[in-house]
């Protein structure tokens, strides 16, 4: 049987990916350029008995998905820059309370209202450092409509597997462009469901580390009674200020991601085998970079592309290895150097890292990157 094919917008694909992953609850607030995600979910969720709610604000939207997640639902919200800033309070809550949820954040210009319809890649640091306190972050930066579908599915899997919020951050170009998408058959992509507790309600503790770094999460309304708080908590979920406990719990929450980077980090290497100049890029900019690399190769320049698919955790190991291999690294990005700084950190001075930054609402075009490749080769 031929697979279902459609010509979809990135945001529509993100919504379809969420549905494929088993999402049954969406809480959102309208914001350009992410609104199509909400629109598709409002249309599709009731058809499968799921719930869509448009909340009074971005914070309320984030709150509603955490509340719904605690009843066992797979949950999604979607937003963009200013909304992401507002959601940070409760993204932190989802981190400390270890509540799975997925946030699609479409990157537009900023800070503040910035450029609502212009593309940007300047929320990647907000994904990592936006909420206060120490916490782990997972952030995926897809580069095509098909990948936006697939990475949204993966985001749900990671959220459930590691009991934490996961962000999918397409830039406005990827979110709004349309491409052909081939829908995977049910079962074709892995779908991870929440691990149910293996003990009865009487013995259950929501943060029982005897089950490992990711303790099973029970659902409200399923016979289990437990307490959830945004305060530092003990294994039983109740607030604690016991120094040793707080330290151990904070470290465990970071370790959930740090000890599993190889499971989480995905990337793509293109023409890197003999490359002397490597372009490190993500999102739609990586597509410009690939175009430029092909052009450079035609002109006899050994250029290659390292495409970041998982922005957080950052592919430290891979970038460090790349830096030891190539003469120059070029980092084009639609911000003023956020990824560049990370690449420099990983490169540890082993190679020169040259950024191309654009924040004028226009994409970085292949010509700009090609020019830089020629300049530094």
């Amino acid at each position, binding site marked *: 049987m031929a697979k279902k094919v459609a010509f979809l917008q990135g945001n529509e694909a993100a919504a379809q990916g969420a549905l494929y992953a088993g999402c049954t609850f969406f809480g959102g607030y309208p914001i350009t350029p992410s609104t199509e995600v909400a629109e598709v979910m409002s249309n599709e969720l009731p058809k499968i008995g799921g719930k869509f709610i448009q909340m009074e604000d971005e914070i309320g939207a984030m709150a*509603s998905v955490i*509340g719904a997640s605690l009843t066992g639902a797979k949950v999604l919200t979607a937003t963009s820059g200013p909304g992401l800033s507002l959601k940070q309070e409760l993204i932190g809550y989802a981190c400390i309370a270890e509540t799975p949820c997925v946030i699609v954040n479409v990157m537009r210009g900023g800070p503040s209202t910035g450029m609502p319809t212009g593309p940007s890649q300047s929320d990647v640091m907000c994904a990592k450092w936006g909420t206060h306190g120490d916490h782990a972050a997972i952030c995926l930066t897809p580069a095509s409509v098909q990948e936006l579908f697939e990475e949204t599915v993966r985001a749900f899997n990671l959220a459930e597997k590691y009991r934490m919020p996961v962000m999918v951050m397409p830039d406005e170009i990827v979110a709004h462009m349309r491409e052909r998408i081939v829908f995977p058959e049910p079962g074709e992509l892995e779908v991870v469901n929440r691990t149910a507790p293996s003990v009865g309600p009487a013995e259950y503790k929501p943060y029982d580390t005897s089950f490992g770094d990711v303790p099973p999460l029970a659902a409200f309304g399923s016979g289990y009674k437990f307490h959830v708080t945004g305060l530092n908590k003990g294994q039983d979920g109740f607030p604690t200020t016991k120094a040793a406990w707080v330290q151990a719990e904070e470290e465990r929450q970071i370790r959930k991601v740090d000890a599993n980077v190889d499971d989480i980090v995905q990337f793509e290497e293109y023409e890197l085998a003999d490359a002397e100049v490597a372009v490190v890029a993500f999102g739609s900019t990586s597509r410009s970079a690939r175009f430029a690399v092909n052009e450079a190769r035609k002109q006899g320049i050994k250029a290659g592309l390292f495409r970041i698919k998982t922005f957080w955790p950052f592919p430290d190991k891979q970038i460090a290895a790349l830096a030891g291999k190539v003469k120059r690294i070029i980092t084009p990005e639609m911000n003023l150097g956020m990824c560049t700084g990370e690449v420099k950190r990983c490169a540890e001075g082993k190679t020169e890292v040259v950024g191309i930054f654009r924040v004028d609402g226009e994409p970085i075009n292949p010509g700009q990157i090609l020019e830089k490749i020629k300049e530094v080769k």
Partner: protein
Amino acid sequence: MSFDYDKYIRPGKLPHIWCPGCGHGIVMKGMIRAIDTLGLKKEETAIVSGIGCASRLPGYMDCCTLHTAHGRAAAFATGVKMAKPEMNVILVGGDGDGTAIGGNHFIHACRRNIDMTYIIMNNNIYGMTGGQFSPCTPTGAKASTTPYGNPDPAFDVAKLAIGAGATFVARGTAYHATQIDKLIVEAIQHKGFSVVEILDDCPTTYGRRNKFKSVIEMMNRLKEIAVPIKAAEKMSAEQLEGKVITGVLYKEERPHYTAEYAKVIERAQK
């Protein structure tokens, strides 16, 4: 006959954190009696709060309890109720949490008429942070941030709730302990968003600054200012000056949110 509160309280969690004479414990007992009267199952009851003294209440309750972020209880609870409408959802919190930082979530929960009960313990102050004025602090009152008297007018929580669309609004006081559970029973039974405001006392951070000599004086004030709605109907505006009307202040039947969304599902699946 003594009431067995222990049946609903998590073992080992008492004594609670509230100060001597704070009425929150009296309200919690009323809520427990109401839950017991209605026979709500603990594992099917979610108690959701924000941040503040009153918001510590869920931690003591042997139910599905969710202690959220400051002001956000109604929004979290909306997610719980939407995702699992068969659950009983009770919100608890203080006046600062509910009407200042949580004001937006509060009025929209009223507007949606989502079937939950919100018990708001109004002690006119931010207690946990040490007594700053709240939107419910009376004009002229002293607080740690109104050393020269409060210039702000205060919210009337019940009017706010009615204006925003809540379909059941009641008011009681921590002094009138026997009335609390009755109001909460009726609120939970009501289909739609129900608000029960309990006028409460904060001897530590409000009473001390506003010339109340003791907890007893604060409790006596609650006794004196409260006028049951039936009695109030026969009183003149002058007689009602400085008084607060208690009882069921407002009640109407209007479609509630999860039932309306069930219709959306029905239409979508046609």
